[in-house]
């Protein structure tokens, strides 16, 4: 019964020119042919390694010449992480602090900037364009740039503060634990906030002006309008941003690799960087795989949450989701026509 209705649906989806015409093999499996190359690439390159990593994490891995030797040790790599690797636990705490601070700051600053850029002013299009600059830059250039700015002796940060008379002595930005942590935070927030701004502006533009007009007649302006109209309307976007930004923040690598190498005193030893070192510098591939798997599970949980809230399961959509998608679709169509 279910199958029959699916078949009908398939027929209805794209009616062929003549229903009685015999379909060729290629025609019958057309969608499968169309998705095959990309599906094979995606899953071949990503899914196989992630399964292989699970196997690796259950082994002690040693290298002898060109050979890799696997000794199955069960969950020992995992238990060792939490019992005999103080750097790992410290790295988790550092990473959590980094993720929470950077995501909160990005979203708060991003929404604030979007609200400003949503107002009418001369040169608005131009300023909205400039915002894209940090987003488009390679992450590695961002890291190099901030390392140069935060250079203790010749950097622009100290130069500026000195010229303004705010400091009399150079700040050792990257050489003291707390300042180094703050430095990579600033560098990351600068790079990642524009994405929030762009998406929030897009969401703001879907709120019809007459809602605000109606509200201001009712005496709700400024803050009140923000809390009762703007925020509820952009809530879905903020939720999306919060989840995706969190996943990405967990993966921060380039900044640490360039700016601090995890130091000083492990103050910036973020997980992705630490795991990379355990694998490629210390050659402990089994432990590294176990660590990366633990990290993956956190990211998968977040992804699952995301899918539950927002995803089209391919067949149906929840009410809330549909409302949001329709909003987006209208906006897309409007954008498409304007061009």
């Amino acid at each position, binding site marked *: 019964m279910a199958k029959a209705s699916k078949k009908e649906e398939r027929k209805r989806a794209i009616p062929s020119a003549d229903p009685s015409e015999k379909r060729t093999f290629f025609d019958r499996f057309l969608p499968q042919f169309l998705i095959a190359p990309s599906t094979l690439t995606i899953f071949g*390159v990503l899914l196989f*390694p992630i399964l292989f990593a699970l196997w690796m994490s259950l082994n002690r891995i040693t290298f002898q010449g060109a050979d890799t030797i696997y000794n199955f040790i069960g969950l020992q790599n995992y238990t060792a992480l939490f019992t005999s690797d103080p750097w790992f636990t410290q790295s988790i705490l550092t990473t959590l602090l980094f993720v929470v601070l950077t995501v909160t700051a990005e979203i708060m600053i991003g929404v604030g900037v979007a609200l400003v850029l949503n107002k009418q002013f001369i040169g608005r299009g131009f*300023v909205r364009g400039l915002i894209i600059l*940090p987003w488009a830059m390679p992450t590695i250039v961002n890291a190099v*740039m901030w390392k140069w700015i935060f250079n203790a002796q010749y950097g622009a940060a100290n130069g500026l503060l000195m*010229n303004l008379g705010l400091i009399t002595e150079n700040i050792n930005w990257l050489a003291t634990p707390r300042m180094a942590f703050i430095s990579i935070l600033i560098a990351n927030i600068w790079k990642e906030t524009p994405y929030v701004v*762009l998406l929030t502006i897009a969401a703001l533009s879907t709120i019809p002006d007459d809602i605000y007009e109606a509200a201001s007649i009712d005496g709700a302006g400024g803050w009140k309008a923000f809390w009762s109209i703007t925020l509820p309307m952009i809530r879905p976007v903020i939720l999306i941003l919060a989840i995706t930004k969190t996943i990405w923040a967990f993966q921060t690598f380039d900044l640490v690799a360039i700016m601090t190498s995890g130091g000083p005193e492990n103050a910036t030893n973020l997980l992705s960087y630490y795991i990379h070192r355990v694998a490629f510098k210390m050659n402990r591939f089994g432990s590294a795989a176990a660590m990366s798997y633990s990290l993956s599970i956190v990211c998968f949980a977040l992804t699952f949450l995301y899918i539950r809230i927002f995803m089209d399961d391919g067949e149906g959509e929840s009410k809330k989701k549909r409302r949001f998608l329709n909003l987006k679709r209208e906006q897309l169509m409007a954008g498409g026509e304007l061009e």
Partner: protein
Amino acid sequence: MSIQTKRILGRIVLYLLVLVIIVVTVAPFLWLVISSVSTKIELLDRKIFLIPETFTLSNYEALISRDFIPAAVNSIVVTTSVVAISLVLGVLAAYAYSRFKFWGRGPLLNLSLFTQMIPPIALIIPMYIIFKRLDLINQRGTLIVIYLSLVLPYLIWIMKSYIDVTPKDLEEAAMIDGCSKLRSFYHVVLPVIKTGLAATVIFAFIITWNEFFYAFSLTKTLDAKTLPVLIYDFNSKFGANYVMSATAGVVASLPPVLVALFFQKYIISGLSAGAIKE
């Protein structure tokens, strides 16, 4: 305070905020550009300036002699290949996902999205072992295949959401006139979703051009090293050469930054299309 003065004050605050936003956004990058056309001596003097006293392009000349050309060639080859291949494969798949119902459609779509959420650090460890075994380390082809797998799910999602909002009537009309499915897609749907195509090309370009992590872990020599890896080397191997990395940084940033500035509207359109279900 009268309404009039309140209004004027509001405008002043608004423009001040806009000014702060502009300065904070542009100043760091501007400083990078200024550093790249200044002499080392002047930079070490540590005054903040907008126009260097002695404007010089010698840093850019020095760049050319320092492995820059082969790394740039690698970046260009890898990026062009990924953009071209992913566009063709991605559009075909997006069309199938948007217009056909078939077994496994929903799960496959979700799974391909899910692969995007796997932390790269969890992938690079097994990849390194596998590619080393197959003797595929330090090859442009390896990077191209990896980047394809990173870019494709994203492109499929964006393209699909563009095709989803295209009315089916057009295609159906063409098919009644005797066009095959693929032909009617090519002649009728593709022209309508030009914005989406542009957005995906731009995304694929920026993601690939900027990628550092995999390139860093899987390339060893200039046979495959891309520009981001070269910039990393400037920072570590030659004892943190700030002027060189600033110069190389400016050059490496220009393509994606210019593309983003010129084709902004596509990016914003693509971001909002992708973000719904990215």
